[in-house]
């Protein structure tokens, strides 16, 4: 168990866990949304923008999660992950490639030695509606095939019916099955309905051993939003203050524009602090975002836009 002393007992029983989660300060919806909107008015220009765009590229989990995915598609994605902008050798690689378990082996082979992480969704993604044994097998297989990051989904049904200990135990079991692989816990905030729930689910996942808490699967609307991510960043910040363990945050789904990515980085900077401004502690789960980041990078460097045809499809 990774949780340290001050929080050691809070998950000891269903009652203790419930008391703890319901004892967290509430989130005022209007206030949280207004704070996120104010942060979005920051104006990031010139050198700051160049720095932020490069950082955003390095934080991308380049993702394909379609039933139609093929090894060929994944190989193309991996090539793009290594060299996002073939025209610019100075462009940094992305953080990870994220695929379904059946394609992990392909991705792992393509990315070997690159330093780019291989992430796999697991645990009956995206619904999580499967027996624990199936979820564990899903996870073990992905790790065995070479995934060093696992993106699991929480059991929302259990969470919403207040069976917090059940959700906790599931996360802890998957954590164990991950071995040395990093665990990202997807809260699927679009199904949690309130920011209070987002805060509780964030703490629950962190207590159970998550290395990252992640907003969404991308299969449910709304996916990542600024206020939801704000609440999760606050939770990660507070958890770090209480436990000393720094848990990362991943905003996934719906972030398509470079401008939005920069707004998220401002929010990370001014909420959790600059220690989170690294691919180790903040990620974007995205596919189309990358090309806009590349276009804006080129625009900033050259002073003009080159059309979308100058950037590769994945």
């Amino acid at each position, binding site marked *: 168990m990774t949780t340290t002393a001050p929080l050691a007992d809070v998950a000891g029983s269903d009652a203790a866990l419930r008391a703890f989660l319901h004892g967290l*300060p*509430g989130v005022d919806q*209007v*206030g*949280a949304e207004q704070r996120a909107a104010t942060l979005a*008015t920051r*104006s990031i220009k010139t050198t*700051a923008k160049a720095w932020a765009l490069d950082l955003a590229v390095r934080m991308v989990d380049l993702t394909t999660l379609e039933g139609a995915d093929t090894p060929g598609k994944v190989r193309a994605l991996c090539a793009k992950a290594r060299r996002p902008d073939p025209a610019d050798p100075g462009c940094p690689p992305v953080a990870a490639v994220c695929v379904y378990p059946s394609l992990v082996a392909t991705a792992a082979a393509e990315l070997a030695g690159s330093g780019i992480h291989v992430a796999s969704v697991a645990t009956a993604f995206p619904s999580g509606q499967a027996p624990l044994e199936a979820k564990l097998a899903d996870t073990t297989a992905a790790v065995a095939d070479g995934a060093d990051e696992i993106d699991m989904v929480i059991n929302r049904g259990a969470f919403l019916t207040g069976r917090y200990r059940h959700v906790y135990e599931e996360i802890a079991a998957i954590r164990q099955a991950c071995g040395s692989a990093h665990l990202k816990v997807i809260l699927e905030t679009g199904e949690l309905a309130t920011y209070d729930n987002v805060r509780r689910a964030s703490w629950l996942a962190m207590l159970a051993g998550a290395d990252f808490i992640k907003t969404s699967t991308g299969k449910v609307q709304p996916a990542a939003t600024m206020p939801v991510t704000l609440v999760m960043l606050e939770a990660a910040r507070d958890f770090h203050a209480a436990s000393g363990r720094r848990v990362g945050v991943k905003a996934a789904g719906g972030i398509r524009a470079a401008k939005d990515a920069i707004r998220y980085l401002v929010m990370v900077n001014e909420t959790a602090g*600059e220690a989170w401004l690294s691919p180790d502690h903040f990620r974007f789960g995205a596919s189309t975002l990358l090309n806009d980041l590349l276009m804006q990078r080129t625009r900033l460097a050259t002073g003009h836009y080159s059309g979308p045809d100058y950037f590769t499809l994945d």
Partner: protein
Amino acid sequence: MPTFEYAPAPESRAVVDIRPWYGLFIDGGFVESAEGDAFKSVNPASEEVLAEVAEAGAADVDAAVRAARSAYQTVWGRMPGRERAKYLFRIARIIAERSRELAVLESLDNGKPIRESRDVDIPQVAAHFFYYAGWADKLGYAGFGGDPRPVGVAGQVIPWNFPLLMLAWKIAPALACGNTVVLKPGETTPLSALRFAEICQQADLPAGVVNIVPGAGATGAAVVNHADVDKVAFTGSTEVGRQIAASVAGTRKRVTLELGGKAANIVFDDAPIDQAVEGIVNGIFFNQGHVCCAGSRLLVQESVYDEVLASLKRRMATLRVGDPLDKNTDIGAINSSAQLERIRTLSDIGAAEGAEPWSPPCELPERGYWFAPTIFTGVTQAHRIAREEIFGPVLSVLTFRTPAEAVEKANNTPYGLSAGIWTEKGSRILSVADKLRAGVVWANTFNKFDPTSPFGGYKESGYGREGGRHGLEAYLSGADHA
């Protein structure tokens, strides 16, 4: 460790053209002052002189009141409301169209961050004119009698903290009700009012309906004491408000006063802490704390004191103090050297009386008037910084144990303009708000304004209400009998 340095992102000054000299705006045109007096308006962020402005003396004020009287009798007072509305809608639209120019001018002359002038002040100014334009032809349905009449000539004196917004609060309802006005802007911030005079010309507002007479205290006194002024409206310090109340006593003049405040922002232990901290920051650091309804006394329940204070300090460390025109600036310049002096004096007294000041590390520009955001802990009700209005970015932090104690402390002030309550418990919001002697009580938010909502104080924070339907009352004579 990486650092995210925000590069300078200044709003362009090119959108605003400031003339070297401005006259008084009387009877539809810009004129010299009779005595030839003038004063300089300074950019408080750089001490650069922005323009020289004619200073109105008694003779000029008299000319302005005569112009207003004439316009009231011949044109504006007898014009049907639906026609007056057209002018007000036109003014509102011009303000919205020229909002960028007005925002930059306001930030230059006042020192407030462009983010606030752009996102709060100017949109609220336009909203006030739109809102009261809508009332102009519906006054018979406002609840002040079937055919309410205007009062006549309104003499209005406004402060420097929200120069154009305070002008809108005064002029929009006055004009909607059929009155004409003589307005004196703050002596350190006359430029946006003079720009508004140009907008009146652009809107073809009949001459004399709006008159702007820049100047200092003596000009204000001349406006207030002029025998042919029917209605006095003042926003500013309680000290000046008292003088005005004394000088109009025994005359037929009607008066509304919107004065100082020392608002309590009360944080209960079940508050949404992150949002409460935002509300505390917004309550005291918005507009450098130059806000009459600022939440300048923080009352925190003892059981969450450490948590709230740690969060507040962490949040304050992210505040960006500096160039008001930079789009990322959170706290701009103090409006004048005199105000800076007052803030310093009261802060020094706070420290001398044993309260402990804290400010985040922040670099202040060398030129201009600046004061770092500051909180004082260990403050009690007996400290002067807990009783006197500082009107700057200085927060006094006090604690309480029970809701009853919170209410007692919150009310233990000669002021009563506003208050804030932070709790997730709805019933507590209602019961505490009921007991607070304050004109505006915000729950789980702070410094929220809307033209539809009345605003005004208890006790030494003044009398009368501005804004909303209530704001019409001061400018309608039929309202006496309603």
